[in-house]
């Protein structure tokens, strides 16, 4: 990090390398119902990050012995396409993908009324087509919408965003360059109406004060993502309603 001075990521007047303010999120566009063969699907463009999510279920659990007698089994599969990052990535799941699949499942699980669908499976398939930072946050946020599209009853949407520390400053919605050269990365997933944090991770080094500020900034960021999610739902179902009106 010694030569990071040569290429500054934040200018003196607090503008980041992609032109954003410190607490500004990237342009985010969600779209529901983009796939034909799934029960629910969503697509997100989050800056340059592009992710497609498909939900299958609730459907018969397979293999059967894994079925839970009192609730649905939720599984998440987070995978990055081999061409989604700078260098070719082997399509075999890495340790990172295994861990992210687990934490994403645990971030979405609390939102789903799993006890409505005993003995079934709800499978969430996430395919990162292009990765430019915060892919787990974008995945969780888009997967919430795919679950909505599948008509699965939920307690709330799960909105997710990350705060990083770059050149000693806290920045909202970390992109790839900031993530790679920054001092820390802290993603959070949040259900606003429940005041429930369903994912929180951090790596890097931050002081206790920075930690407190990060939590506040993360809540603000999640609320902005939440708003975008709601707009996407409204847009999707408004289209459906106007189609019904035509009949």
């Amino acid at each position, binding site marked *: 990090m010694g030569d990071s001075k040569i290429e500054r990521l934040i200018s003196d007047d607090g503008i980041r390398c992609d032109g954003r303010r410190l607490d500004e999120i990237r342009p985010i566009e969600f779209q529901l119902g983009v796939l034909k063969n799934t029960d629910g699907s969503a697509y997100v463009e989050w800056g340059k990050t592009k992710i497609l999510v498909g939900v299958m279920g609730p459907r018969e659990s397979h293999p059967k012995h894994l079925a839970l*007698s*009192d609730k649905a089994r*939720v599984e998440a599969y987070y995978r990055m396409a081999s061409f989604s990052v700078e260098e070719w990535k082997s399509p075999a799941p890495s*340790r*990172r993908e*295994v*861990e992210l*699949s*687990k*934490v994403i*499942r*645990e971030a979405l*699980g*609390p939102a789903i009324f799993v006890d409505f669908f005993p003995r079934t499976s709800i499978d969430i398939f996430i395919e990162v087509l292009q990765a430019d930072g915060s892919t787990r946050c974008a995945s969780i946020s888009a997967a919430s919408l795919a679950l909505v599209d599948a008509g699965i009853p939920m307690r709330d949407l799960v909105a997710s965003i990350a705060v990083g520390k770059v050149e000693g400053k806290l920045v909202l919605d970390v992109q790839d360059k900031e993530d790679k050269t920054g001092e*820390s990365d*802290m993603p959070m997933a949040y*259900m606003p109406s*429940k*005041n*429930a*944090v*369903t*994912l*929180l*991770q*951090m*790596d*890097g*080094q*931050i*002081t*206790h004060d920075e*930690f*407190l500020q990060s*939590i506040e900034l993360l*809540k603000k960021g999640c609320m902005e993502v939440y708003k975008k999610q709601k707009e996407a739902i409204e847009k999707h179902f408004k289209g459906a309603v106007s189609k019904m009106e035509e009949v």
Partner: protein
Amino acid sequence: MSQRIVPAVKRKQIIELSESGRRMDGRTLTDYRDISIQTGFVEKADGSSLVSIGGTKVVAGIKFEIGDPFPDIPNEGVMQVGAEFVPFASPDFEPGRPDEVAVELARVVDRGLRESKVLDTTKLCIIPGKKVWIVHVDVYILDHCGNLIDAAALAALTAMLTATMPEACIEGDAVNLTGKRLPMPITDIPINVTLAKIGSRLFVDPSFEEEEVLDCRFSVAFKENGMLCAIQKGESGYITPEEILRAVEIARDKSQEIRKKVVEALKLKNDKVGEP
């Protein structure tokens, strides 16, 4: 089904007991179980440590190997953390490749160590851009009585703190070992503390039966100077932002207590602790 009913009954019992600040094993909510640390347990390893937290038992071993650096950090050594769940450690463990629980554990332990910069990897370079030391930190779970993350992190840390590394010398293009041993380039003593949220209460150092019924798990690692260096929320429940702040406060106090214990325990065996 029976496996799910018993924890449900226990959960009620654990929550009721916690209302008076007690736990099934007699601890208060903020008590940590007894910790024992036995370093140098495996002589053939470059460093090792057998750690117990209550009944939980974990052994970590360090092995050095000469290898190639990563292209983006050609002048730095490489640290790799792995976790193996030995089948006799729990009736729930099965033989085979590490599953997602083992992968998560290894990656959480790895982050705590890596992000605190516990090991100065710039001192592990042999020939810049060509040969570096690869440090394998492998943790074996031997007996699972709860809180594997803290036990694994502590075993890995204490094994590193007491490890020595081989000295290499370059002759022409060849890398040879002098047979001498050098101290590890250690720069910090990061401590990981895990809490469980059960109902509306936080339980420090959850036991196995508490883990079976928890809503979620919260782990945070602190450097010596009090900075946070890793966080992981785990399992399928949620935690509120207010509870997170409380958990971090409690964990900070606990991390200082544990660090004191580590320093005391290791000083008995080795005066070089914390010395670069």
